[in-house]
């Protein structure tokens, strides 16, 4: 893949549930190795958009490609090329560290020699080799989070989707986690991340903010702050999400 190749492209991507339009003709592109922040209030359509991109939902109309495959017709190919980490870390508490990593490796079809080497590398990188036979339930939350991230990357995906990956962990752990994200992006993996923490939005290369199913703004964090003449991303977000309502109030 070329240096600035687009790994995610969405063109008027739309999802309707009956009369309700959850995602309303969104268009954007994400380049290889980019950290793309996907923001929006609860119910703005973030999850629906992400589900379409990960092949869980069929779009109603529009076009979208992920890792070079079409979301309408090639969702099985997409699934092989992406990693996914959910907000609840998605590991099994009653399995050991080793068993968890091995399970996800097997799910992504890694052969036994590759898998063994991969597990070893993951555990060493996380400094978890001594805890390989520890039940996951006994691991601190921060470790679980990092392990979940590493397992989402076990098959070297082109893109990894992180759905609110830092919920419930302390600021230091969050910062450490973002260091991992940066390292991975430098290796060329595209990071597609949703978050409710605006300080994390600042860490992203580019940020899109969804309001009522549409992308209301898309730029670098610096660009967004300039456009909206805001001090922080927090202000940008509040202005965008509350914007239509407060102008109505001002008018009335």
């Amino acid at each position, binding site marked *: 893949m070329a240096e600035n190749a687009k790994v995610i492209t969405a063109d008027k991507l739309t999802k309707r549930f009956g009369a309700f339009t959850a995602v309303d003709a969104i268009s954007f592109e994400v380049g290889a190795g980019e950290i793309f922040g996907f923001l929006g209030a609860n119910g703005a359509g973030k999850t629906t958009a992400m589900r379409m991109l990960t092949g869980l939902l069929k779009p109603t109309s529009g076009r979208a490609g992920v890792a070079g495959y079409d979301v309408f017709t090639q969702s099985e190919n997409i699934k092989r090329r992406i990693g996914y980490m959910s907000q609840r870390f998605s590991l*099994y508490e009653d399995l050991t560290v080793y*068993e968890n990593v091995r*399970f*996800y490796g*097997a*799910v992504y079809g890694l052969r036994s020699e590759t898998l063994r080497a991969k597990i070893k590398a993951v555990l060493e990188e996380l400094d978890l080799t001594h805890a390989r036979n520890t039940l996951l339930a006994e691991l601190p939350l921060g470790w679980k989070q990092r392990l979940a991230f590493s397992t989402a990357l076990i098959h070297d995906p082109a893109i990894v989707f992180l759905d609110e990956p830092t919920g419930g962990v302390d600021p230091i752990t969050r910062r450490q986690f973002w260091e991992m994200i940066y390292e991975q992006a430098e290796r060329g993996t595209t990071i597609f991340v949703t978050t409710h923490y605006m300080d994390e939005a600042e860490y992203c290369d580019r940020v899109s903010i969804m309001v009522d199913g549409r992308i209301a703004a898309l730029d670098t964090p610096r660009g967004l702050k300039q456009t909206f003449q805001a001090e922080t991303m927090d202000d940008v977000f509040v202005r965008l999400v509350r914007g239509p309502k407060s102008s109505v109030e001002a008018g009335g």
Partner: protein
Amino acid sequence: MRAFAGFVRKEFRHIIRDPRTLLILFGMPVIQLVLFGFAISTELRTSNLAVLDMSRDEVSGAILDRMRDSEYFNIVEDVGSEEDINAAMQAGRVKLGLIFGPGFAGRFSSGDGAALRIVTDAADPNTARLLQSYAAAIVRQFQREQLNAPETPGMRIRTALLFNPLLQSVYMFVPGLIVVVLMLVSALMTSIAITREKEMGTMEVLLVSPLRPFQIILGKVLPYLLLSCLIAALILVLSQTVFALPFNGSMLLFWVECLLFIFTSLALGIFISTVARTQQVAMMVSLAGLLMPTILLSGFIFPIENMPLPLQVIANIIPARWFLEILKGVMIKGLGIQQLWTQTAVIVFMLLLFTGLSIRKFNIRLQ
């Protein structure tokens, strides 16, 4: 394929990591079998009996001899009035009273309604009914012998209890237990296992992975299928070794029908998991919606013929009701598929129905 194998291995690990549940699943049928086989018995042992004999002739004497000879009754009091019987019953000394009216022998042979009353302590209605029918059976048999003997010498009419001559409740209990346990393991455990993935958020990750939805469901179901078969085999082996329960039918048919019922229960479990959001809901739905009707309405404990019509109708839509008939037919009566195909067809229909519903529900969720 490698992904699927990995998935099944993980499922087995989940089961092994929860030894308490495993112990309950295997221990419960064993304990119930032993309890019902030895301790809790619906058949009667010796019950005490009081007699008020106003005739004291040869016929009443002969009937009392029969009573004494039977293993069920023990004549402990010979009283002078009905009040004495009541008193003995109230004090708990006897469970049953026999009252022979005056001139019993004369009326017995002339056939104009010799008066014999059987009084039971109906504070415990089940026992009372059983005692009553046992006592009546003994009298009736005596009566038949007496009336028939002179006309057709050498021939005696006897009642016979087919298939379960000793009226042992374990005969009734083993098929019922198999039905309940298979339902419990297949439907309840599967629905909980699938909703757990949903509740923990791991289902999302699995759906995003290259695993196909049908592989996920199949991988979830396979361990419980195996577990169900193991437990059914355990009950069968125990019932034959410990209780010497005869197995009169075809073992092949038994297992084919068991698998059919397990598949139906698994489909039900999957269906429940598509509806329930949390493990608790799945458990409540399985227990109240499946297990309770299975125990109460399948004919396992209460005979379906004795139920009021609306309950009989409800009983018909419970898969366990049909499967219990099949099991009793195969195990105790030695019936073949020729006699059981109606019941089998009903279960096949239910299996297809629930599978279809689950697939539809699952697809709607993915839309």
